[in-house]
């Protein structure tokens, strides 16, 4: 019975999510109608520019948004269980246990007053009711799992004794300590040196492979997406504008915004007249989150925009299996489709 039910729905289903914040200047609508699914053992990338709503979407899952000013509607189901109407106490039991997070800033995300071993053990003792000694030895195993050398020694060290990459690994160890079903990583490699990024991304891939953890990876870096993600959702101005498997997305991007993001990647640099390789930027800025006219939000920056783009808002349409994009004039050709 429960077996059958389990297989009927995705691990995480977000439907019609809208998140706004009341500010003195009025309501800021950060997320406008986002629906997405996360399957078991899948690495899903949420990408887009700053302010597109990707972080807010992810933070709404364990509801880590200021309750006084946040206006949230829609449905978030984890394994069929609705999270949006849970009280704070029930959410607290889910945070760090079923849904855990890794933040962008490893340098400041650890408590400087306690050893890293203590901080990992604390989560285990709280959520799993482990004894002090059991939690301590598990902490060593977890440090090993995230690729920290000499874990038995490191476990007794304080955050200030570790490098940024090490600290981010410790953050990941804390996040996966209770074998969460969903791990949300918000720009986990942005603050790290490029040389260290690959190692940390390996940790995520390894966790998925070994523990089957489903991961939501929030990033503005499409290089990171290509590296680890299975599927990607591209967001713009609080909406999902394109969604596809990563291979499909890179081979056949449909939305001009996705194509623009790809042209901004260093690997897609165009060689200019002076022989230098140049990155292509998307002109213009993300629209302010106050108004929401019934039109394509990307049209002012879009090279393919026509009159109908301002007439009404395009809906997500299917372009083959699992590939959807919201555009009236989608790209049809391969790789970047020189517009």
């Amino acid at each position: 019975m429960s077996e059958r039910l389990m297989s009927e729905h995705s691990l995480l289903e977000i439907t019609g999510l809208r998140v706004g914040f009341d500010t003195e200047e009025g309501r800021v609508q950060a997320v406008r109608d986002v629906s997405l699914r996360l399957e078991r053992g899948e690495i899903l990338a949420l990408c887009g520019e700053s302010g597109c709503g990707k972080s807010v979407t992810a933070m709404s899952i364990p509801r880590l948004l200021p309750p006084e000013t946040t206006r949230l509607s829609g449905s978030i189901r984890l394994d069929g269980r609705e999270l949006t109407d849970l009280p704070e106490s029930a959410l607290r039991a889910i945070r760090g246990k079923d849904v855990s997070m890794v933040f962008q800033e490893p340098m400041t995300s650890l408590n400087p007053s306690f050893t890293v071993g203590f901080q990992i053990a604390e989560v285990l003792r709280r959520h799993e009711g482990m004894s002090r000694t059991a939690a301590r030895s598990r902490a060593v195993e977890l440090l090993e799992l995230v690729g920290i050398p000499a874990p038995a020694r490191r476990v007794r060290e304080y955050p200030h004794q570790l490098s940024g990459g090490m600290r981010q690994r410790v953050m990941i160890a804390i996040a996966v300590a209770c074998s969460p079903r969903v791990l949300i990583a918000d720009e986990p490699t942005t603050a790290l040196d490029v040389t260290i990024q690959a190692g940390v991304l390996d940790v995520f891939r390894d966790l998925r492979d070994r523990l089957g953890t489903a991961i939501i990876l929030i990033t503005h870096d499409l290089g990171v997406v290509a590296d680890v993600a299975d599927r990607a959702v591209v967001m713009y101005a609080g909406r999902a504008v394109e969604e596809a498997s990563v291979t499909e997305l890179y081979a056949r991007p449909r939305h001009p915004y996705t194509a623009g993001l790809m042209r901004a990647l260093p690997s897609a640099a165009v060689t200019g007249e002076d022989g230098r390789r140049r990155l292509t930027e998307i002109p213009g800025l993300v629209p302010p989150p106050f108004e929401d006219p019934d039109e394509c939000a990307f049209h002012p920056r879009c090279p393919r925009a026509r009159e109908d783009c301002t007439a009404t808002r395009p809906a997500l349409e299917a372009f083959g299996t699992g590939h959807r994009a919201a555009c009236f004039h989608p790209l049809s050709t391969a790789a970047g489709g020189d517009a």
Partner: protein
Amino acid sequence: MADQTLSAPLPALAGATPGRARQVWRRFRRRPAAVAGLALVAGFLALAVIGPLVTADPAAQDYSAPLAPPSGGHLLGTDDLGRDLLARIAYGARVSLEAGVLSVLLAMVVGVPIGLVAGYYRRFLDPVVMRLVDVVLAFPFLIFAVGMAAILGPSLRNVIIALGVSQLPGIIRVTRGEVLTLRELDYVAAAVADGAGDGRIMFRYVLPGATSTLIVQATVGIPTAIIGEATLSFLGLGVQPPTPSWGVVLTDAQQFLDQAPWLAIWPGVMIALSTLGFNLLGDGLRDALDPRSVR
């Protein structure tokens, strides 16, 4: 000293990160004023703890030598009843230490949790608590302490309570201010994301970050309390004769200023030196505990 500076970089070269306490001590040691403060405080503590054990009975009267100037028999002289001033000052140090430390302790034990909760529940509790604090802060510290002591009645215990309560608003303010900054830090947000409850976040994540500031605040609060005790006792609202407190000794000395000025000078010097010591120590700790003040 020379071999210390030579050996200091060695552990760092060996890859061992020095503990925080050692780093703080290293920064502290480099400040002459801080070291002087520490020495004064150590001297004061030694006087308060050991002094009464080795000096004469502060209540014993030497009828042969009332108001005697400093001499071999009475190193600092005697008062009008022939009591040994050194013994009375040593006992007075004990009273000052008790009043200083216990009143600050009282203020910390009560004030830190209030400030912590007020700063944490910023929307509901904070406005109420802070307005009450403002009301108390509107009175000058000593006026408030004098009023409290007058209501409670004169005794050392009541002096400690009066001084403790008078220090309370300052402690609440400082704690709450620290909490307001600390609660916005990334690792607090990370703790929330890991499912930590309010109590745990307050005591495990927010409070430890405030310890440096609170240690300094306590160290600076002690001299204020020492002066407060002396003032209250001087006014007759504190420790009662014949128990010797620096304030009591000063009161007695008042009438004999022209005949036996040492009676007023020594307690005055002691009050000045002990408060100076704690203030220098507090400043030194503030600089040493703040990693941004590296020179």
